[in-house]
């Protein structure tokens, strides 16, 4: 006879406030095989676990049902507790009476009845639980970082410093990312390049780091500890090992019509180009769509001029396959398209720019060598208006519902460095709210007002009208005074909302990493596991997980690195024992299962079997590789004869639950 112990948690008042826990205990005590049942205030606490341990010893329990919060919270806790007293951890079932019951119901009688049902279903299932033992799998001691911005670089450096090999895949021709485009950074107002470029050099020179620039991840298979990744190294048309980076090709290239991505289109670049002076690797790349040689077959100037003979028009994409134990996503962000925000006049006037464009205009290495000018006239502006929340906090469907988080700080930064360099320029920031939490952040914003004389006016800009001779009129309400204003600035800067890189969704599908409605990667737990994806072995670093500034990105990058190192430090991983099992005595060898297995974990093998009638024979049957099986259960339904079953979720267990609930 089975001896089932049922432990009902109050979760303080979270459960007990809505569910009559004593009644649940009373009800389950009536069920045959339930040898012991009790309720307790906090079952997950040390005292609660002690209660379980003692009950197991006193009543010789062999199965445990805990009625508590979601198994996603504390299943592992209770399994570990069971293991401590000699019960196989897979003999534990959780009835989720918090998230599925007390938290969604108000009526106590109703909630209590549901809790009893859920407990009964868990008891029905646990009767069929079997002792399971996890298998082991090797860990490949190499990590992959996707994205070579500050997040990716920092993560890679931290992993490399811990002594593990790490590869960075960056889709642009250089690492550096968005931070390389910035001029100065808050809250210290130091030069972005001065602190980023040494890190880029460190990454390039580190013996444990391999850079794959101008490369993209093509495909991913495998699982935590054993990912197989194919990387597409796009053809640069320049032999990286021969190029000296002299840049003569980029100067002499006759194609000059392509807007520079790095300079946010404020300047044109050649068809062969190095994005910026400190690029790493400092090897040019030919943009084949812009290159006259590729378009017409004539030209070839770069090849003629190259002193090293490094130009190679015949280069093709190269596919590299590598095994990794862990993958870090650091795919960063872009600003949203302003196509749906015609009222701001972006596109209608060159003097309406985004904040990222302003960064290039004020950057000493930028298209104007740091002179702030109106793009339309080339003259210095006299009056600048900065508009916050452009496309952020917008639920109308045109923008993003979230706060982009970094804008309030960089608006203050921009206002400050304009006022510092050009004290005559009048700068006004129109805002809805100023959100500057963070160490030294609010002080920073106040400095803009108090020391730099930046005007802050509460009220979102309604529209920017561009008249025939290019003059800008900004319509806005000063909400504090209730006055309606019409202003004529020379330059309007739009603090445009950020959004994840467009590649995020594609990668999420490839890696089976979860993604939210805005395409940000979802973390395994918002508070307790913020740098891990719910998919084992996938980690998150930087903006790809949510808007964040550089200090936060760097902290998260370090945290992700620590998580990766923690994984790579293990020689073996315990695998999920809830894998498929084939009953070879009845397997017909149709191998339908092999077609649906996403992991190639099932193969057909000719094996000696004993049939149900006791006959020994050799025939083709399905064999599951438990190290590869991830336990999805696709095979169990594809199997026509029911030979395939999934441990932990067997047909019997699920049907027992169905019966208990119906």
């Amino acid at each position, binding site marked *: 006879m089975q001896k089932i112990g049922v432990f009902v948690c109050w979760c303080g008042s979270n459960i007990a406030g809505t569910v009559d826990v004593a009644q649940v205990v009373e009800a389950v005590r009536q069920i045959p095989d339930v040898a012991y049942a009790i309720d307790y205030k906090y079952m997950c606490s040390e005292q609660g676990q002690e209660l379980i341990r003692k009950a197991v010893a006193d009543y010789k329990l062999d199965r445990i049902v805990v009625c508590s919060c979601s198994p996603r919270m504390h299943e592992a806790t209770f399994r570990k507790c069971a293991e401590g007293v000699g019960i196989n951890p897979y003999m534990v079932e959780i009835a989720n009476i918090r998230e599925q019951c007390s938290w969604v119901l108000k009526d106590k009688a109703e909630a209590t009845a549901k809790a009893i049902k859920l407990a009964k279903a868990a008891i029905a299932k646990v009767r069929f639980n079997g002792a399971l033992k996890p298998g082991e799998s090797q860990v490949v001691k190499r990590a992959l970082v996707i994205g070579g911005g500050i997040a990716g670089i920092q993560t890679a450096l931290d992993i490399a410093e811990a002594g593990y090999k790490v590869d960075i895949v960056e889709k642009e021709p250089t690492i550096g990312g968005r931070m390389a485009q910035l001029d100065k950074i808050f809250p210290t107002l130091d030069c972005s390049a001065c602190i980023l470029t040494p890190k880029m050099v460190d990454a390039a020179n580190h013996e444990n780091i391999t850079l794959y620039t101008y490369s993209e991840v093509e495909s991913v298979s495998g699982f935590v500890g054993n990912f197989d990744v194919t990387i597409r190294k796009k053809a640069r048309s320049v032999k990286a090992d021969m190029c000296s980076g002299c840049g003569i090709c980029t100067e002499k290239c006759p194609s000059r019509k392509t807007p520079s991505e790095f300079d946010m289109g404020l300047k044109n670049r050649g068809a062969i180009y190095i994005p910026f002076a400190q690029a790493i690797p400092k090897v040019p790349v030919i943009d084949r769509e812009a290159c006259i040689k590729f378009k017409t077959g004539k030209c070839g100037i770069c090849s003629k001029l190259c002193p090293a003979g490094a130009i190679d028009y015949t280069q093709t994409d190269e596919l590299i396959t590598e095994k990794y134990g862990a993958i870090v996503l650091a795919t960063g962000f872009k600003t949203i398209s302003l196509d749906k925000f015609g009222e701001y006049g972006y596109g209608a006037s060159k003097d309406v720019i985004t904040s990222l464009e302003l960064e290039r205009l004020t950057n000493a290495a930028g298209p104007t060598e740091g002179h702030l000018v109106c793009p339309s006239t080339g003259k210095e502006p006299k009056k600048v208006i900065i508009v916050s929340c452009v496309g952020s906090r917008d639920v109308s469907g045109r923008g993003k519902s979230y706060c982009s988080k970094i804008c309030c700080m960089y608006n203050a930064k921009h206002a400050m460095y304009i006022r510092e360099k050009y004290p005559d320029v009048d700068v006004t920031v129109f805002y809805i709210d100023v959100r500057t939490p963070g160490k030294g952040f609010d002080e920073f914003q106040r400095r803009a007002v108090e020391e730099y004389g930046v005007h802050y006016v509460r009220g979102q800009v309604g529209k920017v009208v561009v008249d025939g001779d290019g003059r800008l009129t900004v319509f806005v309400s000063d909400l504090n005074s209730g006055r309606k204003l019409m202003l004529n600035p020379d330059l309007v800067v739009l603090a445009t909302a950020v959004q994840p890189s467009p590649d995020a969704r594609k990668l999420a599908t490839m890696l089976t990493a979860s993604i939210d409605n805005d395409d940000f990667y979802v973390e395994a737990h918002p508070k307790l596991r913020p740098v891990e994806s719910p998919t084992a072995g996938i980690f998150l670093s930087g903006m790809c997980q949510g808007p964040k500034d550089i200090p936060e990105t760097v902290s998260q990058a370090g945290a992700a690195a620590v998580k990766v190192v923690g994984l790579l430090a293990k020689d073996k991983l315990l695998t999920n024992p809830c894998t498929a099992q084939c009953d070879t*005595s009845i397997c017909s*060898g149709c*191998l*339908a299962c092999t077609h*649906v297995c996403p992991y190639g974990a099932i193969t057909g093998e000719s094996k000696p079997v004993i049939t149900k009638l006791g006959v020994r024979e050799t025939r083709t049957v399905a064999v599951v590789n438990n190290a590869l099986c991830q336990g999805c259960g696709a095979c169990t339904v594809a199997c*026509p004869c*029911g*030979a395939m079953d999934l441990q932990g979720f067997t047909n019997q267990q699920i049907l027992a639950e169905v019966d208990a609930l119906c």
Partner: protein
Amino acid sequence: MQKIEKLLQKRAAELLAEGTVERVLAWHAGEFFYDNAPAAVSSADECDKLVYNEFCPANLCKYLIETSHAGKKTAVFLKPCDTYGVNQLLKDNRIKRELVYAIGTPCSGMLDIKKIKAAGAKGIISVSVDGDEVVVNTAYGEKRLAKADVLLNKCLMCKGAAYKIADEELAEPLPVPQFTGDKFAKVKEIEAMSAEERFAFWQSELSKCIRCNACRDICPACSCEQCIFDKPDTPVAGKAYADEVEEQMYHIIRAFHVAGRCTGCGECARVCPQGIHLELLNMKFMKDINSFFGQYQAGADSETPAPQVSFKQNDPEANSAVEGREQHV
């Protein structure tokens, strides 16, 4: 037909005599002239007892599982529709190609004795085919019936004279019943009924079932080593009434299990002693597979992945299958 029967006997004997095969699967006479049954012969001398005429509807391919299992190379006479079953068994790994010697056997449609009797023929002595007509020789004289009216139901869904797999062809193909209508016509008719009518129809059909398992035993797609209905430790167990779920769901589950593997041979309905229109369940799945996932004919070859173990990213959403359908309480 008599010519083909002679050829069949001759080829069977030759293949056995020269040792190409160890066994031959064909048909032999039953108690009456119209109930020819499957026969397995393993010596050339026995071959003269083999028969072939318009009363050999049985699809022999399922017996290949046994012979393949036993490792005996076996020749099998296959009507065009039977060849689909062989391909399906090959796809399901149930038989070994090298142990099968497939002989394409011409067919121009098999006759249904029940239909002949129902047409008023009494005291039947023999039946022969004369072009589009069937000549029934009875104790009360000769009676002529239109052949199309007395074909087996399964022949009304004839898939054509082509053999989908054959190591040799016994003779030139015969003209097959030209089926001009829509093979899903009956399915569509049921689909067009009101929900109440559909329920009433199926309640009346399925309540006839006596759970003899003949449909399952004849079905070339029901080729499992052990049927889930015979698995005592699953909650769907037992030939006898053991559990109301499997009792009530038997036909739905069976149809689901063979969906995408059923070649539409119609044997299930043919052997059903209660005359349940089982083919209408299978045909429904075939129609749905075609319309939801793209044209597919099980057994047309042995390679194309089956619809239930493949997918397209833009497959229709499940709920769309019943969207716009009449709802009832």
